């Protein structure tokens, strides 16, 4: 399985993301610059954190019109796994691949610390290696992670079990303690916490590794075992 790590001007978690999937997970991965116009050679797309285009106007607002985002949309339509972390999540929201929007943290502060998350749905291609309800430690690092959506959308997310991770102690004011959500089809995940920063005990936690292992497991079940 081969991953693309999309790099926008201002991305700064791209190196960690590549390290996580290449060195810790053992998958193939390549950096892809934001003006790339073909992602056919990749099986999974990773949108890393950072401050794409300086977060000008709104977080993720300018990045949504990058060349590569048309390709990311195509990959999402084709059912390939797409993971957006932090700024990557914000870009997925602006692009409309996920519902809702981000507001400034309730405290107005940039928060950078490990958080306890609960795995709310362990039956997805991003979470199958976790136990249902498992508590995991993953760091957050953001100033705008205060997730918002209207009541109907929230109801839909809850009913369709598309809230994958919730904060145990809500750090930013997110509606319904949401830390990560899935699209309708189940192949696009956006989350504010950084699983790529929690892939070995040396980093304080290896709890993020299971997320990447889940993606590979699901891909193998669909592509290797059947062929």
């Amino acid at each position: 399985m081969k991953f693309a790590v999309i790099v926008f001007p201002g991305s700064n978690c791209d190196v960690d993301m590549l390290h996580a999937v290449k060195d810790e997970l053992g998958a193939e991965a390549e950096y892809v610059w934001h003006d790339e116009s073909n992602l056919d050679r990749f099986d999974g797309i990773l949108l890393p954190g950072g401050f794409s285009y300086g977060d000008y106007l709104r977080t993720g607002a300018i990045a949504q019109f990058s060349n590569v985002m048309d390709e990311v949309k195509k990959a999402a339509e084709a059912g390939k796994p797409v993971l957006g972390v932090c700024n990557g999540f914000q870009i997925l929201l602006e692009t409309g691949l996920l519902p809702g929007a981000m507001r400034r943290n309730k405290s107005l502060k940039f928060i950078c610390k490990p958080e306890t998350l609960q795995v709310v749905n362990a039956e997805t291609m991003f979470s199958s290696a976790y136990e249902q309800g498992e508590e995991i430690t993953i760091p957050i690092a953001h100033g705008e992670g205060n997730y918002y959506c209207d009541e109907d959308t929230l109801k839909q997310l809850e009913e369709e079990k598309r809230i994958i991770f919730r904060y145990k102690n809500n750090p930013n004011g997110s509606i319904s303690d949401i830390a990560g959500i899935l699209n309708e089809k189940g192949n696009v995940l956006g989350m504010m916490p950084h699983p790529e920063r929690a892939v070995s005990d040396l980093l304080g936690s290896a709890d993020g590794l299971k997320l990447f292992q889940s993606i590979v497991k699901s891909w193998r079940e669909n592509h290797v075992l059947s062929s």
Partner: protein
Amino acid sequence: MYKVKVFVTLKESVLDPQGTAVKGSLHRMEYSEVQDVRIGKYLELTIDKNVENLDKSVREMCEKLLSNPVIEDYRYEVEEVVAQ
């Protein structure tokens, strides 16, 4: 040329933590008459006067990029300016 002044504000239903902080500060300065503060953005677009449909094009820009319709509202004013 047209000068289009675009005002982007958070929707009424969306809490504005920055506005709340500024209101707190104004109250501490003893401006107790301030009931609410909402912070928004102001953008100025200079647009060629030969544009085919100014309103349509400004509305599209606002909805696609300049504002996020999930949490924000926009309004705009148009001024005609003579190029120097």
